[in-house]
């Protein structure tokens, strides 16, 4: 991040999500159910320089932790993100997100006649076919989900 142009103070306690693909920070907040009206102190940095990604977004949220389920949904739209847990201004835990090999119950199969869309007990399940570009396959009916489908489902765009 270029400190010459943007200065954001450190947070005392909370979560920093770094290495979000440029422009996706608002989608990440949406996954976390954060609208801005919760009263949380939040810093959003968009399109800042990154050695790894060229450009990236960063989100800092005070007094909020990210649980496992939220982390796996974020990994679908920001597979290279890192989650830093901050306590008393120090990073106490650093988690590198990884897109899981199997994604259960989070996404909907686009095939209306797939058993997962027609039986209350049949939970959706996708296997990762490729990460770049993102491609998932329904284990029940073999229908593909691509990156645009996933993004649309996760953030409703």
């Amino acid at each position: 991040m270029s400190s010459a142009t943007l200065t954001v103070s450190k947070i005392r306690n909370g979560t920093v999500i770094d290495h979000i693909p440029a422009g996706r920070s608002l989608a990440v907040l949406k996954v976390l159910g954060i609208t801005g009206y919760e009263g949380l102190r939040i810093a959003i940095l968009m399109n800042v320089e990154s050695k790894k990604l060229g450009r990236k977004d960063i989100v800092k949220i005070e007094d909020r932790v990210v649980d496992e389920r939220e982390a796996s949904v974020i990994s679908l739209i920001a597979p290279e993100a890192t989650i830093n847990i901050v306590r008393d201004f120090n990073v106490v835990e650093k988690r590198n997100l990884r897109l899981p090999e199997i994604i259960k119950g989070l996404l909907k199969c686009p095939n209306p006649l797939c058993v997962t869309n027609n039986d209350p007990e049949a939970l959706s399940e996708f296997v990762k076919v490729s990460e770049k570009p993102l491609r998932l396959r329904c284990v029940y009916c073999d229908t593909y989900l691509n990156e645009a489908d996933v993004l649309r489902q996760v953030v409703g765009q």
Partner: protein
Amino acid sequence: MPGLVSIYDLTRQDMEEIFEDTEKRLNAQPRKELSGKIVSLAFFEPSTRTYLSFETAAKKLGAEVIGFTGEEAISVAKGESLADTVRMLENYSDIIVMRHRFDGAAKFASRVTSKPVINAGDGKHEHPTQTLIDLFTVRRNFGFIDNLTFGLLGDLKYARVVNSLLRGLKAFRPKLAYLISPEPLAARREILEELNYPYREVREPHEVIGEVDVLYVTRIQKERFVDEQEYERVKESYKVDLKLVEQMKKDAIILHALPRVQEIDRRVDKDKRAKYFEQASYGVPIRMSVLVKYGVEKA
């Protein structure tokens, strides 16, 4: 519980064992290999033909058969989840043969029950026992399956037998598969991307028919069309008639999983290359072999 949900559940060796076992059954008196066993036939989507084939296979092996199809299936499924119905059948039976209109239903059932599930067709997805019948017919006629040129003609998009056949052929070494269909009925990309042998998509059977060893004709799956107009546009877009058959190799064969509608001219039936009735006759012995494979615990 492992069963036969997808043709991928079988290796080449598994398939060859089934073919050899079936070969022995063709002229032999059936033995009561499944006596004391109960086979459930859960046909949530009605199909008299496949139901009778499995029922006959089970009874010849001395098994008891319980099951439902057609109207009965609708009342069984009413208000109850698929998982609950499968759990009920699990209590009564040693093996569950299932047909369902939803894609992936058999796989889901196999994850619910500890009894083996045989997929007798799940939506537009797979129908592995039909593929065994198809490949067995090829083997009976040529003596082998490798190095042949296949031509799959018709509704390659909604016909589950096509998915299972294309996948089943991966265990062998076909020379080439021609996928012959009007554009709206082209095979699914998901299936094509998996293939490990050469294939070519063509629109007109006349272009390639002279090269084909095995012509596999499918019915247009009217019931799977989401859009009635889409069906109207393609419903009579291909037909195997005497003129097409004339251009085929002398020792080629024509297969069809039956029932047919109008995609094969009835005058073709008398041609010696028409093998679809012979193919249908292998339904019971192949299914006997499958039922024994999954219904008898290995020592």
